[in-house]
């Protein structure tokens, strides 16, 4: 095959095997994990989700394109230790999924054909979850969603449910996304209050549906990743928006969002405090302190996230001040000097001319 012109040698330099490790795919390892099934022992086995840049943007755009209708799609990827790794996402030709129980079945044929073609092209990952949108009413699982996910977790493990709210995304300027896994039917979660507490922003109309099923699933921590090549391209792309980068005031524009986050952390802290009080009466043994630790650790992480975001906002404001305002007095003097000169000479010109 004529190699010249296809620039294959150059492509090697564009990836970094350590920092882009998630883009690799080890089919044997995946098969081994599928045989071992470590998730059977622990209903809370999976705790984290990492979504690739491409998958995230595709899902957000798909959710937005549905407008007021719920849309649905499939995620492909693999699992490692306690993490789901979502490498890509694909749309499904189904809409309005919240009112129908078996929306997924209609798309079955499409799904199978699409995955088969992807595999033929070299994309060997299996389906690892499904995503759908809740336009305007937050990221949680409705009764129907829980049913669907329970079924998937019995038949297609490992499987993940992701929900995106495109309206809140647009209004907050940040992606509103949640990842969930359901408990098996006979499992009672230890602290049944916490998942309900975390999602304080469910509108009244949906609150009943939310409350009734909130104990049947738990949420995973979502983060995203991108490749080194992605990072370089994004830097170049965002150079086009440099004015906005310098002039933005994140502390000001995100005030509402940050207040909401702080309220959320406060609520979670109060919860942890209460549960601690309950447990400290008897000498704590075995699993209880561990649970307390987990909850407290989550609170700490949320608090630190807020703090670091605020710090970045402050840095933006400081940069603005240093770049523009610090030297302003000197500029002012210089401007005045020039202006007076010009004024005098203008008079001279008028007199002369």
């Amino acid at each position, binding site marked *: 095959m004529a190699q010249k012109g296809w620039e294959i040698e*150059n492509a090697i330099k*564009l*990836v970094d095997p350590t*920092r882009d490790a998630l*883009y690799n795919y080890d089919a044997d390892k995946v098969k081994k994990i599928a045989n071992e099934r470590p998730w059977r022992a622990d209903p809370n086995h999976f705790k984290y989700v990492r979504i690739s840049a*491409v998958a995230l943007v595709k899902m957000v755009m798909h959710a937005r394109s549905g407008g007021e209708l719920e849309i649905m799609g499939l995620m492909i990827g693999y699992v490692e230790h306690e993490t789901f790794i979502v490498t890509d996402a694909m749309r499904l030709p189904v809409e309005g999924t919240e009112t129908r129980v078996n929306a997924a079945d209609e798309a079955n044929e499409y799904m199978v054909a699409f995955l088969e073609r992807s595999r033929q092209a070299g994309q060997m990952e299996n389906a690892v979850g499904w995503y759908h949108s809740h336009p305007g009413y937050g990221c949680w699982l409705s009764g129907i969603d829980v049913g669907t996910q329970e079924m998937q977790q019995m038949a297609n493990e490992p499987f993940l449910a992701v929900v995106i709210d495109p309206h809140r995304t647009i209004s907050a300027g940040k992606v509103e996304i949640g990842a969930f896994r359901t408990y098996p039917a006979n499992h009672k979660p230890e602290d049944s209050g916490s998942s309900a507490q975390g999602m304080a922003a469910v509108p009244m109309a949906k609150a009943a549906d939310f409350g009734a099923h909130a104990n049947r699933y738990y949420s995973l921590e979502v983060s995203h990743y991108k490749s080194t090549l992605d990072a370089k391209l994004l830097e170049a792309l965002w150079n086009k928006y440099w004015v906005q*980068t310098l002039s933005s005031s994140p502390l000001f524009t995100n005030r509402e969002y940050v207040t909401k986050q702080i309220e959320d952390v406060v609520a979670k802290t109060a919860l942890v405090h209460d549960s601690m009080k309950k447990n400290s009466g008897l000498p704590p043994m075995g699993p209880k302190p561990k649970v307390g630790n987990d909850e407290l650790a989550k609170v700490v992480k949320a608090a630190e996230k807020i703090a670091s975001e*605020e710090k970045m906002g402050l840095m*933006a404001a400081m940069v603005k001040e240093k770049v523009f305002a610090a030297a302003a007095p000197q*500029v002012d003097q210089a401007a005045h000097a020039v202006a007076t000169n010009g004024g005098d000479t203008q008079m001279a010109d008028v007199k002369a001319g």
Partner: protein
Amino acid sequence: MAGKSASSPPNPLVITGKAPDTPLNVQLHPLALLTISDYITRHTLRSQQGPVVGAIIGEQSGRDFTLEHAFECKLEEHHGDVLVDSGWFTERLEQYRDVHKAPPLDLVAMFALGPVEGPQEVHLPMLKQVQQLTGNDSIMLLLFHGELVDQLQGGKLPITLYESVQEQEGTQLRFRELSFEVETGEAEMIGVDTVAKAGSTAVAVQKADTAQGGESSKKGAGKGKGKAKDKDTKTDEDGDLAGVLSPEDDELIASLTAKTNAIRMLNQRINLIRSYLNTMPSSYLTDASSTTPPPDTTNHSLLRSVNSLLSRVPLLAPQTATVVLPNGHEGQSQQPPSGIHAAGEKERQDVHLTSLLAALSRSVAEAQSMGSKFQILTREKDNKARNTYGSGGGRGGGRGFADEGLMGDVSGSGVS
């Protein structure tokens, strides 16, 4: 678009010169670029065979094109030519058309890795085949220049877009470079922005319970976990991980880098304005005694905008700056801090307050985990004591009670 070196011989396949009078209006969406980059990374890292080739779908209305989504293509070889598998390609295109119906998207371009000089002989058969398959002669070719990626400056993307031109029937297909602009929808911008800012790398996932995480340092694998573990094992970190930053640090660095780039751009633009002004002939502004009127070619509106820009800058001066007092000495201004200044102070204090609260919560969590670990330790010690010294039960019991009191204190203070 891409930096072409003047010394290389001109590419016979590329038509240079001005574009026709009604140029095509092409808008590239960031998602297409991200998809291409994702495919390149995957393809290279997984050592897949064959070149990197794919298709881009978008909307076409008249002479306006958009490049919105992209996907990779299955290739096959035919007498030394690289072609797409036509059966696979038609079905795949149909699958994409099925889910992109409003607005209806269709194939508008093919992408491939290519050198800066432009399309090569090897790109032709694939493009011609696709044009035949879809019956659309205006399929464009997008070349991604790997060699330019490390020398990106000033927002230039390492890609070039070409439209195919067939001057007469039967002659060879040639290409003309197209200019394009980057356009994005609201949701796309937020998604891309989130990903761009996050600064997270794709380092491999580490097993949670091994000692790689935990207190040894916050610099775990980019998973965002800083949890203290209940296990006490503490081993040295993997050599690779030592160089990887925690996600918070990564985010901070990413945002600072973005700011640096923005400032660099600002500097470039200012230098541009300055050098333009320097080329202006001398006039009464530079030399008070000159009486030559400004030449007729001066761009007055441009000079006026520069002037207005400069006159706005002094407005930013903070109120408590040093001013020259009437007696010639510099001193602090006696004016009260302005509203803006006070608001800025308050914001700063708020930020520091949140940092303090976060640090406080972390200390509480660590104290509490220490308490529970201590408790486990003493419990183990107690059990051992009871097992080995059956007779010293009183002493062990006594110690146990004392320890329990201590435990109660520690866990109490850890929580309240």
